[in-house]
């Protein structure tokens, strides 16, 4: 059974098709890039997988089942916005995650927090947006999940942090788990991708192995993307 499968998945808002007949499968043990310009439906797709939206038609299947308690146990999701209760301290949110997710490793979270020099006693309201995003990434990566879904994890971070994020993703990517990274900053992450899904205007326009595409097109994924969408 596939880890994640989307079957004829469509989503409409006000009779406008945001996603149109999306079909793909993600097996275990892969890092997959969900690539597309801003506003092409990447986040909508990710929200459908995470039960934050309900499909207009079609199905999302995680281990063969629609999103629900079981899928939430095994998916670790980093949204593109800050989603923590800002009145809490960092240590409080670590405890929160520990209470709700069985696969959460708080020692690891504290280790990563120390590495990024984030104060565990600091209130989230006192933190910059960038710092809050780092805290969220640490929380998400400190779970031993089957599927990590990272929505624009590299947006607006400095190069040093970006390298750190990629390292964190790689070093936490355990066997049997898969990672979906949605981004429009392709050059920064294409090195670590196994497979890519290009999405444009709510449709999948290209899927395949990253190295196969490089071999065939004799250029980088980033360049293929630029040529395809002329940006």
């Amino acid at each position, binding site marked *: 059974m596939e880890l994640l499968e989307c079957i004829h998945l469509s989503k409409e808002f006000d009779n406008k098709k945001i996603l149109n007949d999306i079909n793909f499968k993600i097996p275990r*043990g892969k890092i997959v890039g969900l690539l597309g310009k801003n506003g092409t439906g990447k986040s909508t797709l990710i929200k459908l997988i995470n039960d934050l939206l309900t499909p207009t038609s079609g199905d999302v299947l995680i281990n063969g089942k629609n999103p629900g308690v079981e899928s939430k146990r095994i998916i670790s999701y980093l949204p593109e916005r800050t989603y923590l209760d800002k009145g809490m301290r960092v240590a409080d949110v670590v405890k929160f995650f520990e209470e709700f997710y069985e696969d959460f490793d708080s020692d690891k979270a504290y280790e990563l927090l120390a590495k990024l020099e984030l104060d565990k006693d600091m209130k989230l309201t006192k933190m910059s947006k960038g710092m809050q995003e780092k805290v969220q990434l640490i929380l998400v990566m400190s779970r031993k999940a089957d599927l990590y879904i990272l929505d624009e994890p590299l947006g607006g971070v400095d190069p040093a942090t970006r390298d750190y994020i990629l390292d964190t993703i*790689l070093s936490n990517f355990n066997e049997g788990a898969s990672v979906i990274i949605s981004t429009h900053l392709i050059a920064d992450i294409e*090195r670590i991708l196994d497979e890519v899904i290009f999405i444009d205007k709510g449709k999948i326009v290209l899927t395949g192995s990253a*190295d*196969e595409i490089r*071999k065939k097109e004799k250029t980088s994924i*980033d360049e293929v993307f630029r040529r395809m969408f002329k940006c």
Partner: protein
Amino acid sequence: MKFNFDNERPIYIQLVEQLRIGILTSEFGIGEKIPSVRDLAMLAKVNPNTMQKALAELEEEKLIYTERTNGKFVTKDVKLINNIRDNLAKEKAYEFFSNMKKIGMDENKTIDYLRELIK
């Protein structure tokens, strides 16, 4: 060992090339154990799957071999390593001569020039 990549060519091919050079330059010495796929992937900052593929390619070339429980080792076959070095040298030499030709130096001139240079 340091890795460098461009995104224009398949990453696993670049990995194979650079690991191969690592073996030829004894960065990974003859018969020595090489780090695990995970550690190597972290070192090169690439996907472990890609590293796995590169190592499989090197194994196909017999440059490395797997001991069932202990991990992967560099071959003890010195002849094979030398062969591969020869091939690579040949390739590089041809490339060099063809580049020299492009700037108007034929083979004889190039050889004379090289003799002059290393004196």
